[in-house]
């Protein structure tokens, strides 16, 4: 079965590969917000998937009531996410992180468990308010034919936006003063004060940015995967994001893309040669050898 797939028409193979790469870019932007928060504030938001879900619903309702396309909705989602991120920082993280040099095991446990509780609260509320029905956005920009290879345009748009967002955050962190303060915070909290920035302001800004990207990611997701918006979709995209961030290395902006592309191709190729179950199981289990062999992520 495997051999026959690889011996089949090369244009099928190429189309699949293109699809995998586009999927990888989408997954990368979905995970990128988590990467930002994890890398800078050193806290993992277990409710990450629920904010992706809220972003997707944001795009759905903006489309339903005002006919706004999902790409434009991403901007609205980002604005809301930015505010939500600030609230999240001050409710969930500030008390644990304030005045501390490093995140203790106790604080790590507290934030993990508290955000796990948050994920349950948000998904239950979403089930009550949105109902369990799966919805989708009627948006299909069509397909681009490059010779025998077909490229879904929705995926291509998101891939471009995804790479723009990732390179944007990279440049922001590398080239601006606030970016330098955020990088300082991620390496040494005291260093943030030494360069004249307030650690709490820096950490909350990084969290807010992370949430803005996460919720925008939820909207962008619907461009490529236009069906399947439902209150429990977070239970799929959160673990995918965890794997991507660990693979890329938390805090490395290009890591999201490296992890996303790896996972996208693994999912896509294994779905073609085996079953979706095998593809998901393998994709998730990839995390274990990465943690053993390269705990700092696959990027140098």
């Amino acid at each position, binding site marked *: 079965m495997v051999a026959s797939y690889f011996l089949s028409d090369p244009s099928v193979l190429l189309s699949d590969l293109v699809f995998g790469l586009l999927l990888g870019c989408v997954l990368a932007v979905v995970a990128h917000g988590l990467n930002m928060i994890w890398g800078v504030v050193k806290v*993992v938001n277990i409710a990450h998937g629920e904010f992706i879900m809220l972003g997707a619903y944001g795009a759905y309702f903006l489309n339903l009531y005002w006919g706004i396309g999902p790409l434009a909705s991403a901007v609205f989602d980002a604005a809301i996410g930015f505010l939500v991120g600030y609230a999240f920082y001050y409710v969930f993280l500030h008390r644990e992180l304030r005045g501390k040099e490093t995140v203790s095991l106790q604080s790590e446990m507290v934030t993990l468990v508290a955000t796990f509780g948050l994920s349950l609260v948000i998904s239950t509320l979403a089930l009550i308010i949105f109902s369990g029905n799966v919805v989708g956005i009627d948006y299909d920009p069509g397909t681009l034919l490059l010779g025998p290879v077909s490229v879904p345009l929705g995926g291509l748009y998101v891939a471009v936006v995804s790479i723009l967002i990732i390179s944007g955050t990279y440049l922001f962190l590398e080239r601006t003063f606030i970016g330098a303060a955020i990088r300082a915070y991620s390496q040494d909290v005291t260093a943030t004060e030494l360069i004249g920035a307030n650690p709490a302001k820096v950490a909350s800004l990084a969290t807010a940015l992370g949430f803005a990207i996460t919720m925008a990611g939820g909207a962008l997701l619907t461009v490529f995967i236009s069906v399947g918006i439902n209150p429990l979709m977070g*239970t799929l995209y959160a673990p995918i994001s965890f794997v991507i961030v660990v693979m890329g290395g938390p805090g490395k902006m290009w890591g999201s893309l490296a992890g996303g592309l790896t996972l996208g191709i693994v999912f896509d190729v294994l779905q073609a040669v085996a079953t979706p179950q095998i593809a998901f199981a393998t994709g998730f289990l990839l995390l274990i050898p990465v943690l053993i062999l390269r705990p700092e992520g696959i990027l140098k």
Partner: protein
Amino acid sequence: MKGRTPFTLYGLLAVMAALAAVASFSGVATTVLLVNLLVFAALAYSINFITGMTGYVSFGHVVFMAIGSYSLAVLVSTYSTSPFEGIALGALLGGLFALGIGAVTLRFRGVYFAIASLVLALAGYNLVLQFPQFGPGGELIFYIPFQPLTVFFAIWGIVVAEIVLTFFVNRGKVGLGIRAIKDEEDAAAAAGVNPMKLKLYVYMLSGLFAGAAGAVFAWSTFGVNASSAFDLTFSLQMLAMILIGGMGTSTGPLLGASIVYLLYYELLTYPRLQGGQFLVVGAAVIVIALFVPDGIVGIIRRKYPSLKPVIE
């Protein structure tokens, strides 16, 4: 610590004896309620061994429960054995899987362990769907006589064993080493504690009892299916129980399990509040994690220090 009269242990065993008496002399409805309560308690004690004692958050703990559930379901439905053999196999496989998984994942600190455990649960779910031996859609159903009292004493025995073990692990040298790991793992290692060995030991206990509890759960529901066996909200409930009761203590899990279970049971009976129990438990977890991370036992410990010998 040594030589002190173990009031806590006596107290807990007295509570368990009282539960056994109630189950023996009351109607089927009460017995079924107590079975469900003790399945919750068994799971709470099980996750308490790893997360409560060491602070390593096991999000994927539901994996060991699922291993136990499938052990019993496969043995009873396919090989027509007695459910007790299913429980024994569930415990054995739960313990062995914990040893195997722990040997790798317990090397990862903090969040990495938590995420590795989560990812393993998702991979397990997908793999079960892949094998026809676990039934179509991972569902196995079996038809055996309804014996609530037998099921009750099976889970009762498991919980009693957990209480006794928790108490002695906490009191003994192992507990001392484990508390050192929870405070500062590197310092513990420098002081001559072997963190890996101790963590693996409690993780194995944890997997063993979750396997046994999962087997009884399958027995009490006459079957298993993949989406509920690997339901991550079970993991959250387990965490909620020990968090509310008091992490790492021997009274906390029973206390927390009773509260969470009764909350579920009471709220579930009102149809209009369907789903509301998740909101209440989720919100309780957030508030307790952020404001009173040592739970009810911790509050009692601080407010009434004289009660210490009775609650710890």
